[in-house]
C-alpha cells in the first residue's frame, strides 16, 4: 500500500484507525482520502486497509 506516497507492505489487513495510530497520527487532527475518496471519521474503525490501497493523510498543525 501507499501511505502519503511511501510504499508499505502489510502482513495482514488492518483497520484505518490502527494504521493511523501505528504511524503516530492523531485521529482528531487528520483528514484521510483512500483511493481518491474522502473517508468519513465515523468509518475509520470499520475500514480495512489492504496492500492495493493508496492512502493520503493530511495532519493539521495549529495556528491561524
Amino acid at each position, binding site marked *: 500500500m501507499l501511505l502519503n506516497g511511501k510504499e508499505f507492505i502489510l502482513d495482514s489487513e488492518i483497520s484505518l484507525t490502527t494504521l493511523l495510530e501505528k504511524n503516530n497520527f492523531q485521529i*482528531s*487532527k*487528520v*483528514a484521510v*482520502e483512500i483511493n*481518491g475518496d*474522502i473517508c*468519513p*471519521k465515523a468509518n475509520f474503525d470499520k475500514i480495512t486497509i489492504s496492500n492495493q490501497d493508496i492512502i*493520503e493523510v*493530511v*495532519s*493539521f*498543525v*495549529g*495556528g*491561524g
Partner: protein
Amino acid sequence: MRIFINGKKFDIDEFKLHTIKNKYFPEADIVIYNGFETVENVTLVENDIIHFIKKGVLPSEDELESLMSARHTPFVHNKVKEAKVAVAGLGGLGSNIAIMLARTGIGKLLLVDFDIVEPSNLNRQCYYIGHLGMKKTEAMVEQIKNINPFIEVETRCVKVEQNNIVEIFKDYKIVCEAFDKPEYKAMLVNQIMHHFPNTKVVASSGMAGYYRSNKIQTTHPFKNLFVCGDNENEAKAGQGLMAPRVNICAGHQANAILRLILELEDV
C-alpha cells in the same frame, strides 16, 4: 472602433493612446491600459480598456467601481466578480484573506467567526484599536465597505461545529479554512468534503514562528483539498504566530482561491 474609457463605451477613430488622452482627459495623471499603468503611446485596438485617473479627485460613484477595477486584469475581473467564497475563521489568516479577496473584487463573501476583537489579535490580524470589543464579523464588514463597497458580504457570528457546517456552507463551492485549532481544521475539512463532494477547500497548516518564508507552500493532497503552510510549525508556548509568516500563508490561500475561481488547479 469601440473602446472603453473609465467604464464607458466610446466609438473612436483615433488609434493612439495619447491622442485619446488629450481629447477626453488631458488632466489625467495616471493612464492604465488593459490593467497596466503605462506612459507609452500605445496603438489601440478594438475593446481595449483604458482608465484615466486624476490624483486627489473623488470620482462619482458610477465611475468609482470602474476606476477601482482599473488594475484588475480585464476579462479575469468578470469571473472574479461572479464568484462566491466562504471564509471560516477571521483570525490572522481569515481576516487578511478576506481583505485580499475584497480587494481582488470577489463578488460575494461569507465571513464566519464567533469571536470579538481583543488586544492580542493586533499582532497579526487585520483589525485596529478602534475595533476592540467588536464582533470580528462586524469589524470586517466595516473595513471591506471602506475598501470595496461593490461586493456583497454575508456574515455569521457563530461557532462552527460538526452539526452546523452543512447549513452554513451549503451555498459555497469554495470554502477557505482559516481556523486556529487543528481539531477544528480537520473537522471542517472532513465535513465539507464528506457532504459536498464538489466543493473545493483551501486549508492551512503550519505558519508559526519566523522560519524561512519559502517553507510555506501550497499543496494539493486530495482531489478537492488544497493546503497552504509548512505543515510543520505549529503555534505553541515559545513559538507564537507572527504577522509575516501568517500573511505569507494568507497570501498563499488567497491566491489558491483566485486560481480556483479561474479554474486553475495546478500548484
